[in-house]
């Protein structure tokens, strides 16, 4: 089971990122648990200076932008 964390305080980009990540997981057939992280101290602890951030299995894969579905699929497969 993969854990996908969306880091961000609920801004428009965070919602968009969550949608992209959910679609990517669904189309790749990966079973994933989605967690929203809104606490700023935790977010900074991941080394993120600009939200939204995407964490897959405790590894930060992107921050400050919205990746494409293809990118998220690659990270999910890795």
């Amino acid at each position, binding site marked *: 089971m993969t854990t996908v964390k969306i880091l*961000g*305080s609920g*801004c*428009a*980009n*965070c919602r*968009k990122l969550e949608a*992209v990540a959910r679609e990517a997981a669904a189309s790749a057939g990966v079973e994933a648990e989605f967690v929203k992280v809104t606490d*700023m*101290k935790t*977010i*900074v602890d991941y*080394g*993120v*200076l*600009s*939200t*939204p951030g995407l964490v897959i299995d405790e590894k930060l894969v992107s921050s*400050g*932008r*919205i*990746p*494409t*579905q293809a990118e998220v699929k690659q990270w999910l497969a890795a």
Partner: protein
Amino acid sequence: MGTFLHLVNGGLGNLAAYLAAHVLLCLLPAFFIAGAMAALIPKASVTRWLGRKTSPRVSYPAAAAAGSLLAVCSCTIVPLFAGIYTKGAGLGPAITFLFFAPAGNVLALAYTGSILGPEFAAARLLLCLVFGIGIGLLMAILFRQDDATRDARTDALFAGEGSMEPAALGLLLALIAALVAGTLKLAVLSATLFSIELPLPFAQSWQSQLLEWVPFDAAKGEEGVTVQGSLLILLLVLIGAAAWQGLENITERANRWTWIALGLAAATLLFAALRLTPTAGGLELAVTGRVLAVAIALWAVLHFGRRLQVDRWQAWLWESWRFVKQVFPLLVVGVFVVGVVRQVIRPEWIESLAGTNDLLANAVAVLFGVFMYFPTLVEVPVARMFLDLGMHPGPLLAYLMADPELSLQSMLMVAAVIGRRKTAAYVALVALFSMSAGLLYGAWVDGAGIARTALLLTGFVAALAGAVAWVERRREGVPHPLHPRGEQR
């Protein structure tokens, strides 16, 4: 019922005049610039000056630069603020960053300049810069002990290096050139190169119809809508519709509507730079120097945009569109409400409360800014209304400085990161500094001259320094009754 219709009409008229006059040449390029800043400026190029080991002489200006270049939206403001405070240069630069961001970013500056005039934009920028650094330093001194006890882990968050690729820099400069070319009031740009007469006999009757709907009265600050303005509003609606189809999924891929939306945006900027005058038999169309300048800038935008990698320009367009979606609906509602409210407010009220530049007027303006919460940028049309109703520019600037800094939302956010005690100190300092900024700017507008203004500013800074020194001495001499060992977080 008649009153109600009158109010709605006031709101709609204000909205139409505003869309026609201000949105296009100022806000349209400004949204694209903000998008480019959010997507194309590598954060590490500024944040590496915000680490724990950086000297204050570098970190405070760098914090201000981060505020104006990186912090165009809350996605960056909140994490960067928390990061600078807990892992980087500390409380002082974090506060400077937080204070400067709402006033120093490109959207706020372009918008203030377009609606209130360039001198207001310059005053807002300069005073926010000076006072932002001042408040940051004061907070750092007041809470010095606390700063030393913060978590002292590694500096890795701020160690990254980054530089901007030439195409991205070129794109950013070209967009700024388009904004400047479209809004700057220069004789060269307003001069007519040549003009043609279009045989459109209905133009004049359409203009008188528009004036009937949206009255033009310079004394009351009403701007009216021209024939050209009505066409621009139509183009704006078309851009919005095309952008909804073309930019909503731009991070995945561009489609036909993307190019239609961008083409329409460019065409609109060019069209807005023309000058249309209804005449007896038709419509006179004058091609101005502005058209030429905007065309050159747009060509440069295209030239540099094509050199960017696909995911880079897609990210740029997405961020620009996101700003439009986030800010524009609030602005439309805000401008409408301002139009309604101004039918109700009597100029005498404003005149008696804040018509002169004194201490009371500035205090009232700051209080109003604290208790009224307006969404991003709506403070600017509100300020315009007060200016038209006879508010003195000094208190108006005090309001403009206090409102975005001290909204309830931002206070809660700050309190969550730095705690209530520091937030209270911050709020008090911002209120004090905003009032002083208003008094200073008001004195300058009233003709105090550079020397006297500088003297006042120096006096204010000296008084503050004295107060800080006094607090320091008290701290060293007598232990604080409540926190004998300094505040522990």
